[in-house]
């Protein structure tokens, strides 16, 4: 065995291990397959509004599903990938909504600028919250985040610029000087979801994502790996809040109206969490399934609105009991197991190929 350089300076030109190449090739093939699946989903999303039934109110309902998925994506970064609980993401939804609403209404900014500002303001406040909550975990973290959502709800209800329950009516949405209607808005939401999904994919497949998952899976092992707990918790909160902030902004503009009536409602936060848990918090497409479930449920039980609340609870308990990793895991499990087995057998073959 040749001498292995160990010092940081000496070793950055290590030859990439040709032995591992077959495993790498297989992984690349799986990545390509994933990308094709995403492409198909995007194509579907683009085609949906072309159905004759989908227009007007119906189209805004579909937009709402998309927005919900984005919000859930934000929560998943925290709950699924970093192992922190948040029962208060409705607060970030509100922060995103009011940031964009106030900026577009009083400063006439473009919708895109509104969305980006919502993301940054929400991310900043998320980071701040993480610093405040640095010593909390588990149930205390849940209570703390719930308190945060209450706080935000109280502020928008009582501080005059937010106009409380009267709400703020917004002008028509403008992107690059062009007024967009239902269709334009729907595609804006789809584009946002696509970007958020890509961002989360890159995140969880990076060293930063590994640090998040390290904190989730073993605090001691994470420390021993050199992960700065405070820094990565703050980062996870900021990213999570930023994504949910985008959803909040879209949520304001889909109906061109924001009101404390909506955002002071604590159940909003709980619903997003339910969507994440039902869909599968540590699966990229978990929030898709959960978001569709939570938004569509009352829709299908139109005349039994109260019943939908109970059904949500029943489904949640069933999922926690029988598929704790989420419905997404249930669907993807066969595929995942097949891929894992293939990867393992190729990796296991590396030993023999060296001998032979």
């Amino acid at each position, binding site marked *: 065995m040749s001498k292995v350089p160990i010092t940081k300076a000496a070793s950055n030109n290590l030859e*990439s291990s040709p032995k591992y190449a077959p495993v790498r090739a297989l992984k690349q093939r799986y990545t390509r397959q994933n990308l094709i699946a995403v492409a198909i989903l995007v194509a579907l999303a683009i085609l949906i509004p072309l159905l004759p039934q989908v227009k007007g109110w119906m189209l805004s309902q579909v937009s709402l599903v998309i927005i919900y998925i984005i919000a859930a994506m934000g929560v998943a970064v925290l709950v699924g990938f970093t192992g922190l609980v948040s029962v208060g993401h409705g607060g970030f939804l509100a922060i995103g909504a009011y940031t964009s609403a106030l900026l577009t209404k009083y400063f006439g900014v473009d919708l895109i600028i509104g969305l980006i500002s919502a993301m940054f303001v929400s991310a900043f406040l998320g980071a701040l919250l993480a610093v405040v909550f640095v010593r909390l975990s588990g149930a205390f973290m849940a209570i703390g985040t719930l308190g945060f959502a209450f706080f935000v709800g109280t502020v928008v209800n009582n501080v005059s610029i937010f106009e409380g329950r009267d709400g703020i009516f917004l002008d028509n949405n403008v992107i690059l000087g062009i007024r967009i209607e239902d269709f334009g808005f729907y595609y804006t939401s789809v584009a946002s979801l696509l970007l958020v999904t890509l961002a989360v994919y890159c995140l969880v497949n990076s060293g930063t994502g590994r640090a998040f998952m390290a904190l989730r*899976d073993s605090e001691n092992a994470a420390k021993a790996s050199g992960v700065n707990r405070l820094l990565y918790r703050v980062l996870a909160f900021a990213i999570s809040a930023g994504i949910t902030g985008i959803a909040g902004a879209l949520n304001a503009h889909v109906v061109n109206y924001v009101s404390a009536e909506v955002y002071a409602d604590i159940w909003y936060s709980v619903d997003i969490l339910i969507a994440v848990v039902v869909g599968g918090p540590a699966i990229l497409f978990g929030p898709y399934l959960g978001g569709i479930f939570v938004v569509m449920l009352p829709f299908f039980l139109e005349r039994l609105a109260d019943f939908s609340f109970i059904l949500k609870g029943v489904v949640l308990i069933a999922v926690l009991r029988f598929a704790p990793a989420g419905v997404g895991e249930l669907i993807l499990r066969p595929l995942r197991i097949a891929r894992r087995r293939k990867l393992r057998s190729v990796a296991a073959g590396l030993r023999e190929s060296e001998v032979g």
Partner: protein
Amino acid sequence: MGEHLRCQDIQVSFGGVRACNNLSLTVPRGKIIGLIGPNGAGKTTLFNVLSRFQSYDAGDVYFEGKLANDRMPHHMVSMGMARTFQNINLFKDQTTLQNIMTGAHGQIGNPISAMCWLPAARRRERQIEDYAIHVADMLNLTPELENEVGNLPYGHQKRVELARALASRPSMLLLDEPVAGCNDSETQELKELVFKVNREMGVTVLLVEHDMSMVMEVCDFIYVINFGANLAMGTPGEVRANKDVIAAYLGEDDD
């Protein structure tokens, strides 16, 4: 060669138990130093102090000539200290490769550019993966790279932990009972590995181990502690002949 790690008069109490009572030791650069003592002597506690996992009531820790009393575990890792645990701490649901790559956390660079997949960050990521595979190869873990570590046998898990520690490219390794629960051939393998890490990579090693044959064979110098206090020190030959050490070990049941 100079001192690499030193601690001075370390005191740690858990309620009424004095786990460390004025413990001092010096680890010279490039050596393999043993730390032995009967069960409950305070070895693991001292390891936790040195790697800054554990706070202490009094005393000083110096690493690389710098006072490390106010450092956190992740600082110690970035300064070049890596450790393993007596009771394994791994990311059980993650694969061997993921576990080892997480050990290279110090090399991801700026977390924002890493998560945005900037070209420089992707290059680093590729280097981290290459090095992780390299380390796995060295520890005979290549066939397990895509296995979840929770499914691996105990001896393998011990090696994954060692691989994770090596992935951080440390200048010093703290190993807490690395061959506990391993069979003879695994122990032999690990012995050779410790030599290799020390001789070929130039890594200083501080080793806590109950397997006396291993300690006597690999260590350049040994510290013996008992009831949280320094009992003796010397070369393996000197320690073996020391009357206090023999008495301390005779007093202990064969664990």
